[in-house]
């Protein structure tokens, strides 16, 4: 029963969602809508589960004095501080002198969001630029004709995507007095024609794979995802 019940639920709700896409009648539509509401509630409840998992793992780490256990203290402190600032009644926070409470503008939560969370997130994303540079330096070696094509295309797209590409083309066309294709136009052509053709092919393949996998799960052929063999 441990595996049959999840399998039955998967088949039942999977079929219901598929049928709901093709049948607009309210009897089906409202049932589907109700199931979707349950999903929202379940997703919200899962967040509690996630927080409990984080807390459990780090409390274990501290109690066992695992390696680097001291880092768990600031993590748990930040976790509970942000939760507390978000959920305690607004007037409690304003009563101790803050201009606003909850997640409103001017609240401590908002202050931490803008001054700690936003810069940290931005920094992590900005790392991408550095990693792209080091990966490009290492990976774009012209070892074969295909690699040469790849590197040339990458350079054309990179330069054509930014304003400097247009400026270089305008300068060059002015120099030779001929109206050649500009770098942004070449870049646009690469993105619209060869890039799109390849992307579409991979997209179709991936989408078919996704549909086949969904059908396998809905029909109970693929059971390992729900703990079956």
């Amino acid at each position, binding site marked *: 029963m441990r595996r049959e019940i999840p399998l039955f639920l998967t088949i039942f709700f999977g079929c219901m969602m598929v049928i709901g*896409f093709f049948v607009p009648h309210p009897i089906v539509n409202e049932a589907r*809508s109700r199931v*979707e*509401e349950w*999903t*929202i509630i379940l*997703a*919200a409840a899962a*967040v509690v589960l996630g927080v409990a998992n984080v807390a459990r793992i780090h409390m274990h780490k501290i109690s066992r004095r695992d390696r680097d256990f001291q880092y768990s203290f600031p993590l748990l402190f930040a976790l509970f501080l942000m939760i507390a600032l978000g959920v305690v009644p607004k007037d409690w926070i304003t009563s101790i002198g803050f201009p606003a409470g*909850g*997640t*409103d*503008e001017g609240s401590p939560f*908002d202050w931490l*969001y*803008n001054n700690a*969370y*936003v*810069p940290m*997130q*931005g920094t*992590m*994303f*900005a790392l*991408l*630029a*550095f990693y*792209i*540079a*080091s990966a*490009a*330096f*290492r990976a*774009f*070696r*012209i*070892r074969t004709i295909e690699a040469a094509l790849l*590197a040339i295309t*990458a*350079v054309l797209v*990179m*330069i054509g*995507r*930014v*304003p*400097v*590409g*247009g*400026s270089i083309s305008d300068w060059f066309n002015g120099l030779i007095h001929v109206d050649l294709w500009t770098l*942004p136009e070449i870049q*646009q052509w690469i*993105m*619209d024609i060869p*890039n*799109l053709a390849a*992307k*579409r092919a991979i*997209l179709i393949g991936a989408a078919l794979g996704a549909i086949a996998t969904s059908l396998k799960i809905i029909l109970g052929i693929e059971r390992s995802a729900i703990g079956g063999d």
Partner: protein
Amino acid sequence: MDWKTRLEQLDRRIIFIVIFFAVLMPLFFPLGLSIKPGPEATAFHAAIEALQPGDAVYLAADYDPGSLPELQPMLEAAIEQLCRKDVRIIAGSLWPACPPLVNRAFTEIAQGRFNKVYGTDYVNLGFKEGREVVMNQLGQSIRGVYPVDSSGAPIADMPVMSGVDSYADIKLIVNVSAGYPGTKEWVQQVRSRYSIPLVAGCTAVSAPEYFPYFQSGQLSGLLGGLAGAAEYEVLVSGSGPAAKKMDAQSLGHIVIIGFILLGNLIYFLRSREGSVA
């Protein structure tokens, strides 16, 4: 160790420093490169331009502070154009960290520059957990999904929501997205199912994935990364924060191209040494 080996095994921290300065310098000493809007940004602008005063637009802001430098300028420029067109803006988010960013843009643009009134001209519904399910539920009833706005005020009495309760009452969806749930899901779940026009702005990394949707007409306009945001800003107001950062991005691209060429030069010299030996 000879110089070729040293360059071949170049410490990546040196690459990082060069990139850092290449991006930093133009922010202090702008190059003033001109920006020409491409077809995707022009179509994005035209889709909003076609709206009538009083129409309702759903602004789906699905990102977080990580992609703020790329996406916030798009959101701000879109809000500016929507305010100029005098349309009602209903904003919602499927990313928990996004609502404060939307608030910031509304306060700065809608309220600060156009004297628009919260609840009358625009509303921030805030975050709702549920991803694609929420997208679909909004098609049934916006008030059902969001009985209150991001600060807990009931939305039913707000003038901005008068006559609006589902996609049927929305003229356009403007999506600004950093990933999942985002543009792809809005196309698959809403554009296809409810046939409502959709324009999207996304990070540069994910833009190539959405080009097919733009070509097929499923997206009425597309802004890809900072470059897309800068092109759109040029169309909306002539300039903006993204346009100013394009010099830095240009120089960053040139440095990366420089490293690709350097890597290949070393590789070429090494292989020549090998063939001579």
